């Protein structure tokens, strides 16, 4: 029981915490990309590749700037790291338990995230979203009952040279 708590619930907790932190910090920062900055970059890039429509270039530059702003925002990076740690802990759990036993636990994520976004992020969780998450949970549990879990034996395994 103690093993289940540490190896299974800890990665789930870390993942959910990371996702909630990520959405919270994104809500707070409100990414507004100044139109002038985009225009400056479009003017620089456009002469190099005049074949590409201006609108596409401007879209691409806007996206790039958005990406750069997010990647340099500490709370966003910390939340992403939390999600990554959750993923690594989940891999460790996979090495300890049978996958068919583990997989249904993964669906807990959907329910906890739904509850968390209603409680902590103030999102309006409609009945449809609840039904949707429940259907996904049922689907994952049924899938985990499949007898074909191990990888096919005919798949090529590289031998030690």
């Amino acid at each position: 029981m103690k093993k289940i708590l540490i190896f299974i619930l800890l990665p789930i907790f870390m993942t959910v915490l990371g996702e909630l932190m990520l959405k919270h910090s994104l809500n707070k920062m409100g990414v507004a990309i100044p139109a002038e900055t985009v225009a400056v970059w479009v003017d620089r890039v456009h002469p190099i590749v005049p074949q590409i429509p201006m609108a596409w270039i401007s879209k691409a530059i806007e996206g790039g700037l958005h990406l750069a702003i997010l990647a340099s925002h500490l709370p966003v990076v910390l939340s992403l790291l939390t999600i990554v740690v959750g993923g690594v802990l989940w891999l460790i759990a996979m090495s300890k338990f049978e996958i068919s036993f583990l997989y249904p636990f993964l669906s807990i994520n959907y329910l906890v995230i739904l509850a968390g976004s209603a409680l902590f992020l103030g999102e309006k969780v409609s009945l449809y979203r609840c039904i949707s998450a429940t259907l996904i949970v049922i689907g994952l549990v049924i899938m985990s009952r499949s007898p074909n879990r191990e990888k096919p034996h005919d798949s090529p395994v590289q031998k030690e040279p």
Partner: protein
Amino acid sequence: MYAKLLVVIFLRTCTDLSFKAGVNQLDFDSLGSFGPNVKRMLVNPFVWSGLLFGLMNMLFWAVSLSSFDLSYAYPFLSIVYIVMMIAGKLLFGEHIDRYKLIGLLFIVAGAGMLFIR
């Protein structure tokens, strides 16, 4: 706006397929070969492409999450399961049976329900 979520679905699929292709070439069953396996993992191109896709997946997930509710975008990403099952069959010859199909139907229904406002 939905293009962003589609990019995340694409990147997440590429991440997992790369890792799977990478670790399929290893044999973790024998614990004794743990050291050599780690060494082979570090020189495996699929493992590295997986890491790269994973990094991009994270960044694009942050970008798309800034324009969607978490309670909407997170279940939306379950579409990955659908893509993954088809890709697993095509690329690795994995088996699709009744359980997986019925489970998949539920997931499709769940993801579809998200489009009802």
